[in-house]
């Protein structure tokens, strides 16, 4: 097992980003039949609908690689309405469940990629961070992975934003 360092993650950033990008597109398509595309930040954001955040950590020794996902609520509602009735959703919001499951699947692919490179990691459970716990997405200039979708009015906007960062482990 090779020890992992933040420098290793930076060196693999382009490849990890590709794994994440392919994983997000494949997961939305396979699970919900939704078509989303990776792109740059030059398009408008569906910010008026609100967002759901999900985070997950890959861990080895004293290093954490944390992934933070921000989902447009409109995209998650589209997905939810494909599998649940509106009556069910009125009493049982499932946006957090969808967000966590997508983060879980995508980060499992990253874990597999790192393992192929000799970096064995443990993956934690996905979690919904508190509003003050998602600094990874605050500086949008440092975020390079954006995914677009068409909402029900056929307006194109950002549906998913992902960023990741490696650093020393913090106590849970």
């Amino acid at each position, binding site marked *: 097992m090779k020890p992992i360092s933040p420098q290793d993650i930076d060196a693999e950033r382009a490849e990890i980003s590709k794994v994440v990008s392919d994983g997000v597109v*494949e997961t939305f398509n396979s699970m919900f039949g939704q078509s989303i595309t990776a792109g740059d930040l030059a398009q408008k954001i569906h910010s008026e609908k609100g967002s759901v955040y999900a985070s997950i950590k890959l861990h080895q020794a004293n290093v954490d690689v944390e992934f933070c996902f921000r989902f447009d609520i409109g995209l998650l509602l589209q997905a939810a309405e494909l599998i649940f009735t509106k009556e069910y959703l009125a009493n049982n919001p499932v946006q957090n469940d*969808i967000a966590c499951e997508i983060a879980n699947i995508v980060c499992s692919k990253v874990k597999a990629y790192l393992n192929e490179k000799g970096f064995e990691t443990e993956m934690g459970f996905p979690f919904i961070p508190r509003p003050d716990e998602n600094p990874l997405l605050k500086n949008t200039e440092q975020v390079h992975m954006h995914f677009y979708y068409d909402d029900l009015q056929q307006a194109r906007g950002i549906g998913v934003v992902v960023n990741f960062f490696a650093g020393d482990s913090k106590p849970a």
Partner: protein
Amino acid sequence: MTAVNIPDLRVLLVDDNVVVRKLIEMQLVNMGFKNIDSANNSNEAQEKISVAAYDIVFLDWNMPGKSGYTLMQEYREDRQYDHIAFVMVTAESQERYTREALKAGATMYITKPIAPATFKEKIERVLAWIESNRASKTG
């Protein structure tokens, strides 16, 4: 196709994520399954398995509390549950996890995200396992 009568089979879906349970349920219903229960964690699953005779149990490998993998290992140590087909469902795509699950007694291993065509093909193999298992017990 198998001689197993799908509507008669009892299925338990064990996953802490309601979305995953619903997606699997929808695909099973499309295949003709009618008796489908669900459990949110391993403890709830154990309670249900203790009072109902399930033919197929879908288990999420990683769940808070007792993992699906551990739960399956426990049942595989008890021969009275030999008839249950355990289907491990996980996002872990590495080959070694598949080998580990099958070695520990899983009947099938399904990787998320679950593609409908792959799911159907794997469930047909589970049905063939059930048929073969029943034949070996009666023959």
